[in-house]
């Protein structure tokens, strides 16, 4: 069931906004479609700049505040979930520090809110979706594909030893 959900995601993400979820092989390099909205000035909120950020690391989060000091409950929830899985090495961008990035990331993913989570360059969702993925086991699987072993697997292993 979760395999179907995951496959449907990618399909859904690619189909939905036209912007999110493009395979990495179709990277910036010529676009093709018209840019409907701004951010093309080359600044920190431009499509190119955001693209560079989301591809810079397997796990990239756009949030309010920082992992050490989240400034929003939803952003904090994302940080806590990643922490539960033992994911401490990721790129976090504080949109409160950069209004251009704040708008640019919303344009890029066609998603109106922060936080936003990207795995392997693909937009995955916000806090609610990450929480769902955490609860249904999908997050462990997605991390595994990135070569990241969730700490929760080790926690389960310890429990199995009796």
């Amino acid at each position, binding site marked *: 069931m979760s395999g179907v959900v995951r496959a449907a995601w990618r399909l859904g993400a690619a189909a939905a906004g036209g912007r999110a979820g493009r395979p990495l092989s179709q990277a910036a390099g010529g676009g093709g479609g018209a840019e409907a909205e701004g951010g093309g000035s080359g600044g920190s909120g431009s499509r190119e700049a955001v693209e560079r950020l989301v591809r810079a690391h397997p796990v990239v989060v756009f949030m*309010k505040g920082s992992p050490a000091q989240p400034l929003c*409950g939803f952003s*904090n929830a994302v940080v806590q979930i990643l922490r539960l899985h033992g994911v401490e090495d990721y790129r976090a961008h504080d949109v409160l520090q950069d209004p251009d990035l704040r708008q640019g990331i919303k344009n890029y993913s066609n*998603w*109106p809110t922060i936080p936003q989570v990207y795995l392997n360059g693909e937009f995955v969702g916000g806090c609610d979706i990450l929480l769902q993925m955490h609860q249904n086991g999908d997050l462990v699987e997605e991390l595994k594909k990135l070569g990241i072993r969730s700490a929760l697997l080790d926690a389960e292993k310890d429990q199995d030893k009796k």
Partner: protein
Amino acid sequence: MEPPYPPASSHPHLQALQPTHLQVLDESSRHGGPPGAETHFAVVVVSGRFAGLPPLQRHRLIHAALRAELAGPLHALAIVAKTPQQWESDPHVPPRPPCLGGSKHERHGDAAAGDRQSPRNQ
């Protein structure tokens, strides 16, 4: 669409999703705003239209329905989007995370939104 928006529970665009269950909670007062400020919503939408759709697409449908609000004062949105089957087996709305005073740190061009700053810092 100019504010004030119609009461969210009668929101026509959310109704267009043909929900069997719909809850729209204005949680702005939990984030320091006055009640009815419509800055922080939690929506629970249960609809057969979500069948076969992954969470991302379900949320996008809801965003589209709330486009006017999102263009206005609404800047935080918690979503539960389930099919009637899923809701029946788990009619649970996760508690929303507490506010961490984030809106205090925002620079708003809109003075009205900027006024909604929480004196309480968590």
